[in-house]
């Protein structure tokens, strides 16, 4: 389901309520189970008893409808970007993006590939980058705690930024997706 209107701009919420809610948001991050590159292999151990992400309230959800976090786990092909945009826009607000690996930061070892994009930030608003090729589960957990801190401080505004600068992001996305057939915004 989607509609062809631009998304409404988020307004200011009540302060105290927002603070309490931010605490709740930080302690219950649900991740869309969607892997793009090599990194999805490193995500699996997070759920096992050795690393156990559930103790931070992080859980995997199979559908973007119920998730808060989208993890871009490694190189992103232009073909995959189309799907990722769909998934990202279907996540309900507030939503965050964690990008793993040097491939998402500047192209990494695929910097001169014909179909993987180099700087993810131009196409989707990234809240936390975790560097490494591939980051170990410890590093990913570190990235999560950084995101939690950001949410608690109320600084994780990637999704607001995306909505406010939708034109900029769309322009960049359309530049590399030549057969653009997505609606104006996916709900």
């Amino acid at each position, binding site marked *: *389901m989607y509609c062809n209107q631009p998304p409404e701009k988020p307004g200011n919420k009540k302060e105290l309520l927002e603070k*309490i*809610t931010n605490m*709740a*948001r930080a*302690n*219950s991050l649900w991740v869309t*189970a969607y892997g793009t590159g090599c990194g999805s292999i490193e995500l699996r151990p997070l759920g*096992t*008893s050795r690393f*156990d992400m*559930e*103790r*931070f*309230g992080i859980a995997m*959800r*199979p*559908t973007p*409808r*119920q998730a*808060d976090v989208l993890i871009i786990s490694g190189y992103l092909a232009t073909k995959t970007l189309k799907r990722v945009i769909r998934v990202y826009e279907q996540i*309900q*607000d*507030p939503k965050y993006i964690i990008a793993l690996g040097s491939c998402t930061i500047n192209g990494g070892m695929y910097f001169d590939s014909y179909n993987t994009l180099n700087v993810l930030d131009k196409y989707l608003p990234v809240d936390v980058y975790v560097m490494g090729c591939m980051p170990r589960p410890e590093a990913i957990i570190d990235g999560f705690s950084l995101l939690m801190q950001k949410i608690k401080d109320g600084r994780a505004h990637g999704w607001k930024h995306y909505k406010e600068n939708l034109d900029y992001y769309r322009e960049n996305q359309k530049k590399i997706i030549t057969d653009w057939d997505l609606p104006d915004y996916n*709900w």
Partner: protein
Amino acid sequence: MFANFSSIALTILGALTWGLLLGGISRSVTARIHGRMGPRVTQNFIDLWKLFRKTSSIHHGGMFWMAPMFRITGAICVLIMVPLVVGQNITYNMSFAGDVFLLIYIMFFGCLGMALGAGNSGHPYAVIAVSRGLAQMSSYELSFSIAVVAIAVGLHTFKIEGIVAAQQAGITSWNIFRFPFASAGALLAFLPMQMAYPFGIVLAPQEIPIGPPTEYSSRMLSFMFSGRALFGVAKLILFVSLLFGGASSWLGLFVKTFLLYMYPVVVSSVFPRFRTEQSIRFLWFIPTTLALVDLVRVML
């Protein structure tokens, strides 16, 4: 009248809190069995609040919105009809002769509403899960109903209050000892009711990721969760009243429901999952036969 209303409201609130807390405890118990730390026990409250405050912009038609309400309604109906604590009149919210049959029907009703709503969402996984769930429900509901009828016929009362009152003469008068076969059947039917493994074909995270609630998001999902917690507690209280002699004090109620809740948790964390037809075949034969044995015994 007012006392009645406030006691109902208190019951519902208490049941919700207790249900969510039990859910949190069960999550950490499962985690410990896996050898993990597991989440906090309050994790479910945090999740619920977060979900409640997320925006929601998904619409799939009227039934989609109604489904969680159906479930919550069913749970509340069960809650206010079953006496919570024996001897304290304030907890006898609404019980009347013949409410056993209404209860069995209403337990169906909540799941049916869920099924309609999930079917309306149009997601293929949700539809598959609903068809599996209804098939399984028709099989465990049979053994559960036969067990309840056996108990009711044996005690000559169709009122939950009467069934509870008949069990007050010490532990040996509990129905689980007076009707061992029917109780075994009902307890086996309790596993699929709680969607515990090996009967977890409805949520089956490996094939149909989470089944019915696939399309539900944010606020709707939080209602769904609270409905599930409420329904869980309602079922627990019903089982405690039917089989374990009701509760003579608040402490007894909490202890009994807690222990009963842990039973599917422990079972499900060590079992793999049946396939649909295996699960249904098992439920048609073993618990139903067990319950029938007692029914025949009582009739004779």
